[in-house]
């Protein structure tokens, strides 16, 4: 048994990390480091930079532009990108709709959408949740009624991340309500510029505009925008969320945040002393580091089963818990930044252009609380921690 990376793995990692160092806009990396929002242009610019190398979609098959990496290499790539503060690629294109198109889409859809997704030509958003269909996603009520060569779409989505940037949505809509609620759901690609689509911002508690409500009023969706088979949307959605779950532990991102935390904590104590000499703070930092080591090792263990083509039933059952462990770690880290900032972190970043006393080194202080508030979403989105536990319990025989 060996949990060490080989020399080739290390070289592979360094290749990616040095590419990021040489090609990322330093201001973008700084914003990512300090958990500040990026503009659409900054996101897209970066996605095209790595899209050209196939790194935006490391899990895609080679014939569609993926780099043909093993599961371990994909994991190393994610870690290397995150360690250099590269922005996270919008998952709606590469990780939600693309795998469904690859597995269930037709030839035209593959030829048209996949290259565009890889090069971030479109901004995709995810139209899953509705006001009364959150944890109970199958209760969704947005209707798509067939009228000749198109559907008429009516209903409402909510918590749609960056719908204000999006020109396309991967939408779950009900095309048949005669059977069980899991039946009759269809995956549609919706043009966000089509007449009848309207987007209303939802401002979250820290004051940012990240999520939206999206309303559909008699929106014409061409029949060719159905992905896969009509009525099979529920199984496709589960397939998509499975993908999402493997990405959300964000081990690399947490490792980067942990390094940053230690960096800022080194002078955050009274009189510029190190908070890492404070036994309580040091113990919490140590615990999060240990948890992170455990999670990384668990990921490596599961990934090595994947690469060997022998994923066990026990591993399958436990996969939803990776998201829970990952978000627990991310949220603990976000809290430790708030604790490190102390009362100085009470300043709201929006009111202060990010600095206290004009001192650029204080930026992490003013973003700490906003990030902490914002990151409460992590245990809610993509299936809440409660739902992940429920799925795991169901996965385990006899429960």
């Amino acid at each position, binding site marked *: 048994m060996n949990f060490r990376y080989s020399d080739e793995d290390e070289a592979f990692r360094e290749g990616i990390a040095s590419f990021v160092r040489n090609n990322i806009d330093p201001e973008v990396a700084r914003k990512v480091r300090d958990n500040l929002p990026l503009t659409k242009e900054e996101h897209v610019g970066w996605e095209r930079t790595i899209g050209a190398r196939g790194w935006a979609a490391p899990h895609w098959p080679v014939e569609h532009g993926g780099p043909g990496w093993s599961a371990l290499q994909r994991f190393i790539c994610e870690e290397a990108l995150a360690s250099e503060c590269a922005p996270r690629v919008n998952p709606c294109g590469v990780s939600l709709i693309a795998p469904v198109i690859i597995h269930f889409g037709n030839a035209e859809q593959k030829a048209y959408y996949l290259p565009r997704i890889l090069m971030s030509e479109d901004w995709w958003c995810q139209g899953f*949740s509705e006001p*009364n269909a*959150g*944890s*109970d996603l199958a*209760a969704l009520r947005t209707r798509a009624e067939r009228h000749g060569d198109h559907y008429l779409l009516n209903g409402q989505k*909510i*918590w749609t991340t960056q719908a204000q940037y999006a020109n396309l949505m991967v939408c779950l809509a009900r095309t048949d309500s005669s059977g069980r609620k899991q039946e009759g759901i269809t995956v549609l690609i919706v043009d966000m510029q089509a007449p009848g689509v309207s987007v209303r911002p*939802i*401002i*979250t*508690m*820290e*004051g940012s505009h990240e*999520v939206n409500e999206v309303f559909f009023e008699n929106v014409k969706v061409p029949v060719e925008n159905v992905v896969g088979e009509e009525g099979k949307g529920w199984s496709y959605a589960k397939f998509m969320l499975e993908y999402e779950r493997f990405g959300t532990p964000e081990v690399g991102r947490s490792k980067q945040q942990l390094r940053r935390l230690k960096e800022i904590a080194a002078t*955050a*104590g*009274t*009189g*510029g002393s190190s908070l890492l000499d*404070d036994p*309580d*703070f040091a113990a919490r930092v140590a615990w999060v580091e240990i948890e992170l080591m455990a999670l990384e090792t668990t990921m490596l263990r599961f990934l090595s089963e994947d690469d060997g083509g022998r994923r066990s039933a026990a591993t399958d059952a436990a996969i939803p818990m990776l998201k829970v462990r990952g978000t627990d770690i991310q*949220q603990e880290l976000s*809290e430790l930044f*708030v*604790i490190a900032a*102390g*009362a*100085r*972190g*009470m*300043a*709201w970043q*929006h*009111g*202060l252009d990010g600095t*206290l*006393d004009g001192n650029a080194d204080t930026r992490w202080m003013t973003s700490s*609380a*906003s990030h*902490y*508030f914002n990151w*409460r*979403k992590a*245990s*809610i*989105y993509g299936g*809440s*921690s*409660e739902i992940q*536990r429920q799925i795991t319990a169901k996965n385990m025989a006899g429960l």
Partner: protein
Amino acid sequence: MVDITLTEEQRMLRETLERYLGREHPMEARTAGAGATGTDGHWRSFVEMGLPAVPVSADNGGIGGGGTEIAIIAEQLGRNLVAAPYLETAVMAASIVEACDDVGLRRSLAEEIVAGSVYAVAHFEPDSRFDAGHVNASAVPQGDGFVLRGAKASVAWADRAERLLVSARLDGGVAIFAVDPGAAGLDVKAYVTNDGQRGADLRLSGAKGVLVVGPERGGDAIDTAIGRARIYLACEAAAIMRRMCDLTREYVATRQQFGTAIGSFQVIQHRLVDMYSQTEQSLSMALLAAGSWDAPAAERDRVTSAARALVSRAGRFVGQNAVQLHGGIGMAWETPLSHYFKRLTMNGIQMGDESYHLRRFASLSGAAQRAR
């Protein structure tokens, strides 16, 4: 005998404030604004109700209230999420003014507070973290007064204050000075805080100050002001937690998923019960701390740190789980709960976080044991 009944006056104080805030301070006003809420109108009403006079001693023209009255006010301002400089003016500044040796100055400052002047207390510095003894700002005599140099950080309501009380080193101790907010040599960088209140960083480069408490008593006066502020904060936090529990209970009883109210699921029920029980424990500790308002410093600080440690920890649990059980809607600015969460979070790090108070309690509790 333990007696937790309120006097007729105390009951009236609570009812008056409850009625006023219920009528004049709707949560929509709080969630509509993009930043800090305007408080000027409410502040005038609070002054008419005599709130700033409550902790000011009768000798100095006040009402002479104590921990119970402050607990009532903190509860009401907390559960209604009022953004106002009450803690700074009536709890901290008034307490410092009481320690002023100069009778004439003491009475005139107390009179200003009773009449409704807004005060801010500038004590903590950019690198003091939670250590109240870490003061680098300094004062030197000049003419008939003093000039002050140094930096103060996270000073609540400094940009709205009509008078600042500023601590600075003098003759080997810490003294407290009254500074005019418009004074030359004072730079105030104001900002909105995460919980919709006001804060500022101050730079003093030769600003004129009038001595309020000299270096022989200044440190104790600061400790008393901060000790009482912590009592207020504990009471405010407990009230916010109670409110968040109630809002969450209402939500899970009505939110339908999987064909039923989510409150019918055991995992939700148990979590909610843990939130309530931690809230009850917090309220008890907050009231215990309020009872030490006039106690000797060692006793007040021991009980207050116990309360702050417990309330901060419980506040984190209650706040995080209230948002979690609400799901996405708990994250939205439009949802009052999110504003309670932000205030509760900031409350938990104001003037000492959980770890600071846990260690302080351990040390004070050890000292009390040894003295026996």
